């Protein structure tokens, strides 16, 4: 017979009285002073065990019996064959071993979730965003850039036309559009906007010595458009923040920075590196498909890295938005040097 000491609160009052619960198999007797109450276990609502907190037994008449003797309650419940769904939680929570395991497992699971799970989910979600949403974004972003950084291109009209013509012959993705701007603070650069606008800066065009190099950069940016990278990027960025907020529940402003901000940015950079690598592969595929040497890709990259003063090496990989220049130029390793295409029909398949 289990006997449990505790406090009895009749329904609707804050006045507790000390009481003893004598437990038989499926029922118990609550002794409060001279009064005895018969309780049926099946009619009791027993709170889940949590650390050493008092256990609450809700009586059907609104009264409560509260006790600190968790062990005795558990023994009683077990002997009556009543198992709590959450009783296993207490077992994990009470042990430092399991807590330390969780300490290792939490970052590991987060890493797996973000590295493999998120891109998997982001891809179809991003694909579901209609073109009508993406297209107006181009004008807005370009308008902002034009106002602040970019200036009208100073390249000779004939040069631009020639490049656009060359791109037009190769273009396999519908809806992309080449634009030229003076880069200003952006320097030698190229970027693709969500709706399919690709911008090349004058400074970049001046670095280009051959058709192959032009194809390399144009194809890389076309890859970003064709593979819907800007939308995947947006979805992933939003996803990281939302998942952390969703799982952690209540965050405060300061901890936001530590828990969501820093890992969020690192995760973002890792996604960005992955997308850049995808676009690189796309460009290499296009080069070989249209009869140019992959070396064109490397030679332009080398020139770009030189121009930007080898920025790359100062930051470790995990702090960069692009894979390292060394690993990227290695992609274009080829015995065949980059020279103007002798292939008479670039993009021959069409």
């Amino acid at each position, binding site marked *: 017979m289990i006997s449990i*000491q*505790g*406090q009895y609160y009749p*329904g*609707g*009052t*804050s*006045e*507790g009285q*000390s009481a003893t619960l004598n437990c038989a198999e499926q029922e118990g007797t609550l002794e409060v002073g001279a009064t005895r109450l018969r309780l049926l276990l099946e009619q009791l609502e027993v*709170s889940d065990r*949590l*650390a050493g*907190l*008092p256990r*609450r037994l809700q009586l059907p008449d*609104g009264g*409560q019996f*509260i006790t*600190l003797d968790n062990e005795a309650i558990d023994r009683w419940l077990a002997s009556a064959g009543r198992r709590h769904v*959450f009783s296993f*939680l207490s077992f994990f*929570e*009470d042990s*430092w071993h*399991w*807590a330390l395991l*969780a*300490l290792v*497992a*939490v970052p590991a*699971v*987060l890493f797996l*979730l973000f590295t493999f799970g998120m891109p998997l989910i982001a891809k179809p979600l991003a694909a579901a965003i209609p073109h009508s*949403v993406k297209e107006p*974004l181009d004008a*807005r972003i370009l308008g*902002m850039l034009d*106002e602040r950084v970019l200036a009208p291109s100073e390249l000779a009209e004939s040069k631009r036309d020639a490049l656009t013509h060359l791109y037009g012959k190769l273009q396999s993705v519908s809806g992309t559009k080449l634009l030229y701007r003076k880069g200003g603070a952006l320097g030698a650069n190229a970027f693709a906007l969500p709706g399919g606008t690709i911008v090349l800066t004058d400074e970049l065009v001046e670095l280009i010595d051959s058709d192959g190099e032009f194809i390399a950069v144009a194809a890389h940016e076309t890859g970003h458009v064709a593979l819907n990278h800007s939308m995947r990027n*947006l979805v992933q*960025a*939003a996803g990281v*923040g*939302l998942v952390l*907020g*969703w*799982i*952690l*529940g*209540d965050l*405060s*402003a*300061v*901890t936001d*920075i*530590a*828990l969501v901000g*820093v*890992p969020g940015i690192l995760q973002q950079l890792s996604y960005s590196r992955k997308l850049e690598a995808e676009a690189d592969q796309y460009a290499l595929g296009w080069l070989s498909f249209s009869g140019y040497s992959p070396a064109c890709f490397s030679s332009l990259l080398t020139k770009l890295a030189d121009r930007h003063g080898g920025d790359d090496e*100062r930051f470790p990989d995990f702090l960069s938005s692009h894979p390292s220049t060394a690993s990227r130029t290695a992609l274009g390793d080829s015995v065949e040097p980059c020279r103007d295409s002798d292939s008479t029909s670039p993009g021959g398949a069409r």
Partner: protein
Amino acid sequence: MGEPDYGALPLEELLEIERHMDPEAAPERYAEVRRQIELRHSGMGPAGSGNAGEADARSDAQEPEGARAVFTGSAGEYFRIWIVNLLFSLLTLGIYSAWATVRNRRYLYGNVELDGSRFDFHGSPLAILRGRILAVLLFAAYAFGGDFHYAVPLVALCLLIVAAPWIMVAALRFRLSNTSWKSLRFGFEATTGHAYRTFAVPAAITLVAYGALLGQAIVGQGDVLQGNLKAYFAWVLVMSLLAFWLIPTISFRARNLAFNNACFGQHRFSADIDSGVFYAAFLKAAGLGIVAIFAAILVTVVLGAALFPVIGLIDKQVVLATGGAVFYVVLILVYLLPFALWHVRTTNHAFSALRIEGTHFSMSMKVLEYWSILVTNAIAAVLTLGLALPWAKVRMIRFRLRCLRIQGELGGFAGDRGVTQSATGDQIGDAFDIDFGF
């Protein structure tokens, strides 16, 4: 050395003694301490926390009299519960997070002991899950909708402003009606209509300010502020000036609504809160904030000048990046000071005005102490990537309870209350980090 009279010590001190005691070295004394703790816990002690006031009065005549609530839990224990439940949340892709929230809250509430009885949290995980889904969607629109269209976060913000009074009432109802002490539930009796009337003017003004932006965004070419610096500065100036009236007014009315409509059993809390304290505290905090900006600039410049010969040789960009980071950190640390001043002044005042039947409260937090806890908590949380959060939370709860006294009769309450099941307001409040004052 004689045997100390453990029976006369308050529970918090007993727990402290127990933590530092070596059971092997002094088994009898340890057993006596354990026995006293058990007695207090079961509410049958010769010196329940009701007597703690007497012990305090004896030990320090300066201390305000009255009962104190104590936190009986430990940071380590809370950490284990937090991290284990966090892992389960992750493994269930966040669905379990609502159950985790309930367990965390139950632990924190359940370890607050007043007059020999613990608080308890009864919220339903399913209600929290439903509320959280809605809150996350709203938050997503606010935080990331701007990537797609400039107006999306503004629409979300306007929705939030329009819904704010309802959110506040719903959140307080859920929180309070799911909290109990001595087997009686708390509650919140203000109606949503009452809240809308209370906030009509400040909400309308805020709505007009953001609604104007929204209208511009829809009618015009997009972001009106980005193109027009003059309009932008005019808007910021007007909003800053308005803030001097809006923020203290909204905070005062929210506290007033919360403290005068909260109930325990059949009894209602009341508080004669003075709005002047809120306006004065805001003015002082704003002044302190301006000083804080200059202090942050000064510290950055001095540090920069001292360190420039060292790092200046490396790279211009590194210098700029470090300077920016230093300025940012200093700004955050210093900026918590005006916030601390504002929070401590208004909270002390509001709690000291609070009463229920013959019981009244007094709160005596110190600005610098509160600030130092905020700062060290923030540093610890950042350095441990959030792992110190449970410790930080327990520390803050201990501090708050230490500053709170309850005078008067702690018995004789009665009456059952209904229970609110919807947690939507509660979760939106959590997602946007809104503090409703209780």
